[in-house]
């Protein structure tokens, strides 16, 4: 049984200028031990998808179709309040983008953790502190952090505190949205290491890591989803996708990553970079939304939208690969 399963999810923002189609026909499943990366550029819908996956849907965002199952139970037909009450924090948790700024400057770490946990489950303060202490020790962090104020913590430590707070009730699925984008590389590595440890120690059973940085996903994820204009364009095992990208967008995206490696200099930047800008999701191009930027666009791409087509455990949404 999948921990999380989405079938044909569609969620749009209703705005005065029209509907923003941020999540369009998304299907995916998260199994135990999965560490799934969702890659894509800003505005491709990855953060919206994160919210939709836990039914955190509030106007102007609205779910227009598809089904969502969490731990075997359908939640797409339930209200946000019901899902929040029954699943958030205990079955599914999120570390939202910019969570680093969510610590109250006047509250000690432990008070913050108590607040977060009590929002999801009625447990006594003493018990929560005990759980937090154990978690800190288990992860190799000093429990004395619990008595400190946010300004006494480094950015990396603050982020780790937030991750501990959101996983203290051992949720089955953790969604982390750009958890390290505000951190220096050395702290980033420590935070990623902690996320891996959480899963290895089975505090959490699966992680969805949303980031624009594919190099990070290459280091920690086992599967990779590439999104473009609200849709999944490619999916597969991380190494397969990186070494043998199929969708022209994935190829371009990988080719534009700069890491300090000789392969990157040899490959060059000109090899295949993506011209133009990502489309406006109010009025996405007809057919495949990538066709105006695609060097391989065919007449068919301008009128028909390719669906995500599986071959084994790889999937790609591109007419080049659909016979």
């Amino acid at each position, binding site marked *: 049984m999948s921990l999380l399963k989405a079938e044909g999810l569609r969620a749009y923002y209703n705005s005065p200028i029209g509907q923003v189609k941020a999540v369009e026909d998304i299907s995916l499943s998260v199994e135990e031990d999965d560490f799934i990366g969702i890659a894509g550029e800003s505005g491709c819908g990855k953060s919206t998808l994160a919210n939709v996956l836990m039914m955190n849907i509030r106007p102007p965002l609205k779910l227009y179709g598809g089904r969502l199952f969490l731990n075997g139970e359908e939640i797409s037909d339930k209200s946000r309040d019901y899902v929040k009450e029954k699943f958030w924090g205990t079955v599914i948790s999120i570390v939202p983008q910019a969570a680093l700024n969510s610590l109250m400057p006047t509250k000690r770490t432990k008070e913050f953790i108590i607040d977060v946990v009590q929002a999801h489950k009625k447990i006594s303060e003493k018990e929560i502190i005990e759980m937090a202490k154990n978690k800190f020790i288990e992860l190799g962090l000093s429990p004395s952090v619990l008595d400190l104020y946010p300004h006494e913590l480094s950015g990396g430590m603050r982020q780790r505190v937030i991750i501990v707070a959101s996983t203290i009730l051992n949720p089955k699925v953790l969604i982390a949205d750009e958890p390290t984008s505000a951190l220096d590389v050395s702290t980033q*590595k420590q935070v990623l290491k902690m996320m891996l440890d959480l899963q290895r120690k089975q505090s959490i059973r699966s992680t969805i890591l949303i980031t624009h940085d594919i190099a990070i996903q290459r280091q920690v994820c086992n599967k990779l989803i590439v999104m473009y204009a609200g849709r999944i364009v490619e999916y597969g095992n991380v190494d397969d996708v990186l070494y043998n990208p199929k969708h022209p967008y994935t190829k371009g995206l990988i080719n534009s990553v700069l890491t300090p490696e000789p392969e990157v200099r040899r490959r060059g930047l000109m090899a295949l970079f993506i011209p133009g800008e990502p489309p406006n999701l109010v009025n996405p191009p007809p057919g495949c939304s990538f066709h105006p930027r695609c060097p391989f666009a065919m007449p068919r791409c301008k009128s028909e939208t390719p669906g995500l087509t599986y071959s084994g455990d790889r999937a790609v949404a591109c007419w080049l690969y659909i016979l």
Partner: protein
Amino acid sequence: MLSSIILKVEDLTKVYETGLFKKKYITAVDKVSFNVSRGEIVSLVGESGSGKTTVAKIILRLLPPTSGRVFYNGEDIWEKKSIEDLKKYWREVHAVFQDPFASFNPVYKIDRVLEQAFNLMGTPVDENAIKEALKEVALLPSEVLGKYPHELSGGQRQRLMIARCFLLKPKLILADEPVSMVDASTRASIVNLFLRLRDEYKTSIIFITHDLGLAYFVSDRILIMYKGRIVEEGSPDELISSPKDAYTRSLLESVPLLYGKWAGF
């Protein structure tokens, strides 16, 4: 070869003073020295708080150093006094910042940013030159002219700032995290613009960045900064294949790689 040195930074030190009653001193930049040659791309790489932006501000003459000197074409930049001298300096030494949105005044149309370049050059506004410069950075005049900053994407705004470089043809560009706010696919086209400025106009460029991957790709030479000092310097390949300094090594171990895999992870 001495004449090809365009910028010489000598023992640059900046100490910030904070605190109202009890003074605290923070050494942001500590005896930093380096040269930049004509047509050379030098990257100053460091994590937040390493002092790299302070170095940039001093070179741009926006911040006085505590001690040490900066020579541009052999002249000490802090000896330039008259407005005319300064205008000439800023015409030749140009900055491109991280957040292009912050460089624009939101209530003015973006045309003004380009017209100000003519003010700096002391020549009348030349519409054709503007159109040429926009073409260089792959922006359609109809896409950007007459619009307000918020109507453009981050990538477009950053390319617009570089269009200014094509208008002014500065001798030295200081680019402070110029691509950290733009997406991967747009980043490539912006990096290529800097490389073209170097190749076509022999512009010298100082990249100030935390991104070792970017520095590795674009630079002729990389300087690693840590706690206000330059701890290591070398060609990109030298630096990543045989880093000598302990900090450089730890930095390289922490950078996520696309092809290699972290050990023990």
